[in-house]
């Protein structure tokens, strides 16, 4: 069986062109959906496939669709805001297989009978925006979009929306606010899902770029075939983004649960290990909101439940490697600083807590810290997310706030000595 689904075309140099797309099975999933299946049958295939959302939360796509409030108008929004640090899989998919994204979005639109579709890409993806708009233009030109697609009774439009630089707009309710022309302030829950109240107050499905990029394959080959890949709840493949201090950073599509972090980081086929003479210090398994892993976690398979059981998350599928030349205090600080800068400011624990953690970690890294700072940091973390547990408790409107403590806590728990050296010697020992 194949281990390439969303990335199947990426090895072609012209993978972004319509010619390559059509020569490699393009449109076949959409044609089959529209001409042979009912919307419900498409949704059933996706439920059978157990396709988990690839945007970070890992929610079953089929189940999300089934939660749509019944209303005459409903919207579909594709989330291509991709700003989680070290996550770059959607960047690759929008630039190098934009037709697959448009086909997948159209299939999803049919399955949920959407009235209107928006593909929202972060504004920095200038080239990606150009390629997706071209793919949309070409789809209209061959009647793969617009009125009566491929002669079926289904009609829909896709509009491309650029973001303008704000990590928080990846959070789905913030994205919807942004799409309504406002600041990207996440909405207060409940309702927990835009499937109840979304864009312009209507039921809306928000799905990630990679999630819908799987749909052409699922429709073509069936949900069962997808489910045969992987194990348990983790079905199909995932495009992992490997970065940091590894010899060959890159995107690697692998069958879920079939390889371990050790394989991904050290195998010749993937990361090819660390620089000569270096040892692994730590790695983050799923974006900077996730608790860190250490060498003892290397043999955990890349699967949703497997990683969750070990106390972290697969999240956005980005794996960040830190070797022993790096400073854990500095890494924790840089992550905290990111959240502090990107907090939308609506909730006090996130806005104030994040800013203080940024400041305190920075002063420790610069050799100006005090021993009491460690307890102070943990106390701040506890104020943001009571108990500092995993999964984190939430006192804020969205989970950006509770995403701050995991790396701070991981660094303090595992590298306390490093912190103390910074404080006692008044400098960073790694600088």
């Amino acid at each position, binding site marked *: 069986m194949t281990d390439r689904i969303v990335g199947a075309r990426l090895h072609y140099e012209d993978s972004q062109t319509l010619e390559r797309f059509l020569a490699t099975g393009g449109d076949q999933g959409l044609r089959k959906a529209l001409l042979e299946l009912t919307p419900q049958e498409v949704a059933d295939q996706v439920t059978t496939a157990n396709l988990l959302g690839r945007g970070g939360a890992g929610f079953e796509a089929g189940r999300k669709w089934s939660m749509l409030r019944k209303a*005459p*108008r409903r919207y579909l929004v594709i989330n291509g805001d*991709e*700003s*989680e*640090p*070290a*996550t*770059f899989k*959607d*960047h690759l998919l929008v630039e190098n297989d934009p037709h697959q994204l448009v086909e997948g979005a159209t299939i999803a639109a049919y399955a949920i009978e959407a*009235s*209107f579709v928006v593909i929202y890409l*972060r*504004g*920095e993806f*200038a*080239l990606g*925006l*150009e390629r997706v*708009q071209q793919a*949309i*233009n070409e789809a*209209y030109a061959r009647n793969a*979009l*617009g*009125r009566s697609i491929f002669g079926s*009774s289904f*009609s829909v*439009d896709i*509009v491309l*929306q*650029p*973001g*303008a*630089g*704000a*990590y928080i707009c990846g959070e789905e309710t913030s994205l919807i606010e*942004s799409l*309504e*022309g*406002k*600041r*990207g302030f996440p909405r207060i829950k409940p309702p927990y899902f835009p499937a109840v109240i979304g864009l*312009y107050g209507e039921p809306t499905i928000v799905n990630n770029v990679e999630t819908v990029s799987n749909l052409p394959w699922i429709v073509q080959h069936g949900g069962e075939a997808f489910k045969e890949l992987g194990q348990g709840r983790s079905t199909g493949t995932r495009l992992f*983004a490997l*970065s*940091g*201090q590894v010899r060959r*950073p*890159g995107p690697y599509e692998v069958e879920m649960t079939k390889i371990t972090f050790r394989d991904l980081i050290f195998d010749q086929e993937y990361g090819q290990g660390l620089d000569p003479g270096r040892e692994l210090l730590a790695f983050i398994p799923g974006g900077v909101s996730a608790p860190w892993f250490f060498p003892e976690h290397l043999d955990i398979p890349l699967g949703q439940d497997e990683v969750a059981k070990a106390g972290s998350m697969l999240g956005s599928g*980005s794996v*960040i*490697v830190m070797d022993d030349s790096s400073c854990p205090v*500095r*890494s924790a600080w*840089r992550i905290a600083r*990111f959240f502090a*800068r*990107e907090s939308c400011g609506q909730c006090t624990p996130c806005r104030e807590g994040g800013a203080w953690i940024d400041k305190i970690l920075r002063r420790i890294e610069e050799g100006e810290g005090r021993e009491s700072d460690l307890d102070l940091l943990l106390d701040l973390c506890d104020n943001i997310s009571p108990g500092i547990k995993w999964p984190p408790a939430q006192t804020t409107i969205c989970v950006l706030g509770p995403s701050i403590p995991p790396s701070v806590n991981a660094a303090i728990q595992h590298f306390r000595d490093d912190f103390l050296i910074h404080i006692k010697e008044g400098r960073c020992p790694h600088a």
Partner: protein
Amino acid sequence: MARFSDEMLSRAEELVALYPDPRSATIPLCHLAQEQDGYVTNEAMAHIAELVGSTAAEVQGTASFYDMLKLEPVGRYVIGVCTNIACMLRGAYELLENAEEVLDVPVGATTQDGLFTLEEVECIAHCDQAPAAQVNYRYFGPLDRQSFESLVSKLRSGELNEEVPPHGTLIRIRREAPAVIPMEEIDRNRAGEAE
């Protein structure tokens, strides 16, 4: 310098017509304003408000939230060096220091000739090419001092004009498609099918 020119206005009106609610065009229109003037001017915000049916204050409230939307003039090229974790682990802060030296401006400032503005930015999703930077949102990496210097001199000489167009992330984007289907028609078809 100001309101949309005739050509920009027709592009703006096309964008407004795409959405069930015209206010959804606010951010795209801000990008157009930036393309025209280099940044989003007060006059442009007032014009955008007229076009989308909101107020200038609302447009400013929105525009001021987003990092890409500049409310003050910036250089012809905005260079953003990413220092987030994946780039930092591969020397981003050293690159940023080098960039300050090469351009002879501190982070946040614009060179005297108005050519370059240097920014430190958060992750741009180019992490396998770390340390990475963007120039008017066109991506480059991995960069070291030498390749950064050569990037800057190519920008100066105009050698990268094709690869790095002036401001405006929508500058090369044109929608070529029939007008969007009116929501009422979609609603009607839906009702027809249900019968």
